């Protein structure tokens, strides 16, 4: 910490941690010079387009390619039979299951991949797709997951009908995937049996889609002479994808290069490996020419990366004062036709067991039953660590329901149940150790800022006049930064992340990381972390990620893990550089290392500050012979960081809605979001992330849902039918913060981008339900579209004119 005015000035020049500096990546984006995957154009490149099933469940009787092959420009049509010789018509999923790359005799969801047409341009490819003749025998489809395990239900996955398990324990029905549980069932049941008060509610987290502006796609290019495969791919985790491609293709991993390039938003959609990628890669290996495959928006919404579809039941047991004694949450999870659910191996239900939230709950039990249905496979996490939104939604809704039952104020019931500031680190009944928090202070700050009491008074007056006003509160705890390597792996690979820093002789530096920005601003924020650690200007620190030939191995960017894990790796790698720099400084100043102290951008001799060496001077010296005897040259440092714990960002949100009692239209009058993400690296970027996360929360709560009819036809796969808010609907956000650093993170940071999504969704729902709470309404399922809200209004008879 700089103490003198002169030192403060030097510190400001670094534009390090805490500085709202402009983003380094913007220059290319505002000038149309980004390099997204569809911008890649290679000589001789063919365009691949996919033939998809019109049925949710059907047998394939025949596929006739003849007419398609006669279309000018069409070069080939690939089906499962063409991939069989290389054994790539099926692929393993990250969920322990297998998934058809191209449908093998049967389709199990509408829009499933049946064939790929390769053609000289996208128009010829589309013409070819229209001419592929596929004959189907339609089968009955299962759309409702509650019917999946009924006796005599149609068997969706005949390929694994006899398998006793698919990666996660015994199966009890051909459409059963796994049952996972955590906590003390008997102990929890015993509390419920004797509790003074219990509440129970069925709560749906509907099937939704992250819908980034850029869809998924790739350009695969295999050089037959060199045996080298290059794939430009929309991936949030390029290193993991490279490993998967090596395993699938048999090509040595050293001869596979994955390039993430610029990615037009991910939000979870771009973590998995999708069939389109695999077919494009195989096609390039077979033909030796580059193949481009880019999803249309309809394909994106229909097939890749749905999230949620958790049909939950929440139960709380409490004393008469609303102190929660036990929690029992179960969920029926609709995973679609293949379990390509993305999660760490040991967590088939993701981090659902974070469902005790911000509250000290002595006993808890949760259970998730996952089943197959005839819907697109998945799922992914939509701007959250996996299944965290589902968990937080349940607890934040249930505590409101308990408050209503006991007629306790919804802020007060939270205060009574919070884990107290002095209890951290706090281990929950389901085994997570919350690293730090100050929940009460956060909530109190929000209540004061919005004048909560006045809002409740206004609400009472409006209720008396028959008007509908709701106040929603959400005091959530997130769990991010997967994860501690003892517990967290994917495909056996630990979820560490990495940073490799090289300082140049003239004092600029390059740092390469295993993460992958999709808009989060890593080129800026990582540079800020290193700037503060090393005393070099963030302007002169170049960040590179996403090209597997350049960057060290890492698990990528998802689950808000970049700052908690990648950012930690950057800080630790920088400290290794700094430790070497200190030795060089001691040598140059002819003092002992212990006689030096760090001062913003230099080491100075204690008690004699005029004797100092700046990091820039040290960087030059490190490349000369003027270094200690036996020391190797250069000023580099690298770190593969294994986080000792997850980080637990938290927040307190408050939302005020006014609902039209005739139309059901909900107007968000106010949304006040206080976030605590520990140490703040770039407040401007944090605020931007919160605006975006809240907007995605608003989208989910108020309108998004992938809807299916009883035949398994998807009814919401274009932006006409799938809600993405415009600037007109989107509320104006008010942001605030407290700072409770993580005790185990090198710079105390926790990650922030997902908090507003996770915490925002229940806040909207709590506000909408609160508008009807005085009429006995305890829950309304999302999305709270005008029509859905009107249905509640109409049922209550509120829309009658006096």
């Amino acid at each position, binding site marked *: 910490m700089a103490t003198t005015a002169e030192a403060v000035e030097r510190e400001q020049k670094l534009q390090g941690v805490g500085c709202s500096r402009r983003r380094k990546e913007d220059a290319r984006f505002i000038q149309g010079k980004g390099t997204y995957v569809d911008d890649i154009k290679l000589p001789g490149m063919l365009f691949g387009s996919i033939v998809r099933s019109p049925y949710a469940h059907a047998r394939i009787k025949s596929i006739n390619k003849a007419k398609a092959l006669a279309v000018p420009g069409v070069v080939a049509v690939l089906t499962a039979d063409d991939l069989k010789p290389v054994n790539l018509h099926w692929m393993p999923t990250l969920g322990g299951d297998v998934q058809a790359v191209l449908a093998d005799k049967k389709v199990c969801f509408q829009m499933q991949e049946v064939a790929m047409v390769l053609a000289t341009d996208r128009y010829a490819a589309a013409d070819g797709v229209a001419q592929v003749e596929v004959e189907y025998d339609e089968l009955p489809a299962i759309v409702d997951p509650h019917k999946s395990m009924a006796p005599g239900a149609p068997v969706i996955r005949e390929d694994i009908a006899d398998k006793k398990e698919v990666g996660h324990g015994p199966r009890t029905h051909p459409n059963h995937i796994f049952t996972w549980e955590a906590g003390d069932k008997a102990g929890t049941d015993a509390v419920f049996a004797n509790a003074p008060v219990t509440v129970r509610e069925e709560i749906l987290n509907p099937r939704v889609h992250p819908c980034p*502006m850029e869809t998924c796609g790739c350009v695969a290019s295999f050089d037959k002479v060199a045996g080298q495969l290059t794939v430009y791919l929309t991936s949030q985790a390029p290193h993991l994808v490279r490993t998967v491609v090596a395993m699938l293709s048999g090509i040595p991993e050293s001869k596979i290069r994955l390039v993430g390039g610029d990615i037009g938003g991910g939000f979870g959609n771009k973590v998995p490996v999708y069939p389109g990628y695999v077919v494009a890669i195989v096609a390039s290996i077979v033909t030796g020419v580059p193949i481009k495959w880019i999803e249309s928006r309809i394909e994106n919404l229909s097939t890749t990366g749905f999230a949620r579809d958790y049909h939950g039941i929440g139960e709380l047991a409490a004393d008469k004062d609303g102190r929660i004694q036990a929690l029992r949450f179960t969920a029926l999870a609709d995973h679609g036709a293949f379990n390509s659910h993305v999660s760490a191996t040991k967590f088939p239900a993701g981090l659902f067991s974070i469902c005790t939230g911000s509250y000290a709950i002595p006993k808890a039990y949760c259970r998730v039953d996952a089943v197959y249905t005839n819907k697109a496979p998945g799922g992914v996490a939509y701007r959250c660590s996996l299944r965290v939104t589902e968990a937080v939604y349940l607890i934040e809704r249930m505590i409101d329901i308990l408050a209503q039952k006991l007629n306790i104020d919804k802020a007060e019931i939270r205060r009574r149940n919070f884990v107290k500031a002095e209890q951290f680190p706090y281990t929950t009944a389901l085994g997570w150790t919350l690293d730090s928090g100050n929940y009460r202070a956060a909530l109190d700050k929000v209540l004061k800022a919005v004048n909560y009491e006045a809002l409740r008074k206004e609400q009472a007056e409006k209720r008396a006049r028959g008007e509908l006003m709701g106040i929603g509160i959400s005091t959530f705890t997130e769990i991010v930064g997967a994860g501690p390597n003892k517990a967290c792996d994917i495909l056996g690979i630990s979820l560490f992340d990495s940073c490799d820093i090289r300082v140049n002789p003239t004092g600029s530096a390059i740092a390469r990381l295993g993460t992958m920005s999709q808009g989060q601003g890593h080129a800026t924020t990582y540079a800020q972390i290193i700037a503060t650690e090393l005393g070099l200007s963030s302007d002169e620190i170049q960040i590179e990620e996403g090209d597997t030939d350049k960057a060290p191995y890492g698990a990528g960017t998802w689950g808000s893990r970049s700052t908690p894990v990648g950012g930690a790796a950057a800080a630790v790698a920088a400290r290794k550089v700094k430790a070497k720099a200190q030795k060089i400084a001691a040598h140059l100043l002819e003092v002992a290392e212990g006689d030096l102290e760090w001062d913003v951008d230099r080491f100075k001799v204690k008690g004699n500050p005029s004797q100092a060496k700046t990091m820039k001077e040290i960087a030059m010296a490190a490349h000369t012979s003027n270094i200690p005897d036996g020391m190797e040259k250069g000023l580099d440092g690298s770190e593969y960081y294994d986080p000792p714990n997850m980080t637990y960002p938290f927040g307190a949100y408050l939302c005020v809605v006014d609902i039209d009692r005739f139309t059901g239209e909900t107007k968000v009058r106010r949304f006040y979001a206080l976030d605590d993400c520990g140490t703040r690296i770039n407040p401007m970027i944090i605020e*931007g992330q919160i605006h975006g996360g809240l907007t995605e929360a608003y989208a989910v709560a108020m309108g998004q849902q992938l809807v299916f009819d009883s035949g398994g036809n998807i009814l919401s796969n274009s932006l006409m039918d799938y809600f993405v808010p415009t600037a007109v609907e989107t509320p104006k956000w008010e942001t605030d913060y407290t700072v409770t650093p993580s005790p185990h993170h090198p710079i105390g940071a926790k990650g922030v981008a997902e908090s507003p999504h996770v915490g925002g969704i229940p806040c909207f729902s709590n506000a909408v339900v609160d508008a009807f709470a005085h009429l006995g309404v305890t829950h309304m399922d999302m999305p709270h579209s005008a029509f859905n809200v009107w249905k509640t209004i109409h049922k209550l008879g509120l829309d009658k004119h006096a």
Partner: protein
Amino acid sequence: MAKKPISFMLNGRKVETLVEPRELLIHVIREQLNQTGSHIGCETSHCGACTVDLNGRSVKSCTVLAVQAEGGTVLTVEGLPKNGTLHPLQEAFTQEHGLQCGYCTPGMLVRAYRFLQENPNPTEEQIRFGMSGNLCRCTGYMNIVKAVQSAAKKMQAAGGK
């Protein structure tokens, strides 16, 4: 399919190319003329990532045929800077943090460019309405609105250029 020659002004430069009658303007701009700043987000006119300026109007170039640009004037994000200087909107988007992943940004900028010609001194609500044909999933729009407001002020001060 027989190709047809077309010619139009693209970012102040005359371009000539051969297109199929069914070819979309966005594909011709990106794939034949190699101006990849404008993006494709939905192919149904909803998202606005492909917004370009055609003859003084904002159009979604994913649903405009290239032949419709014949003899016309097209502006894309690549044409916004003047004499090597960024347009005030470009400066404002970075200054106000009006972009994150950058995918919607070129369409946003080109739409904002036209919007400020239509309404040089807009209110916040007018900006929100005027920009509502362009979707963004990262920013929540607040900083985009701020950027348009701040650019409008600067352009007004500079004489409405």
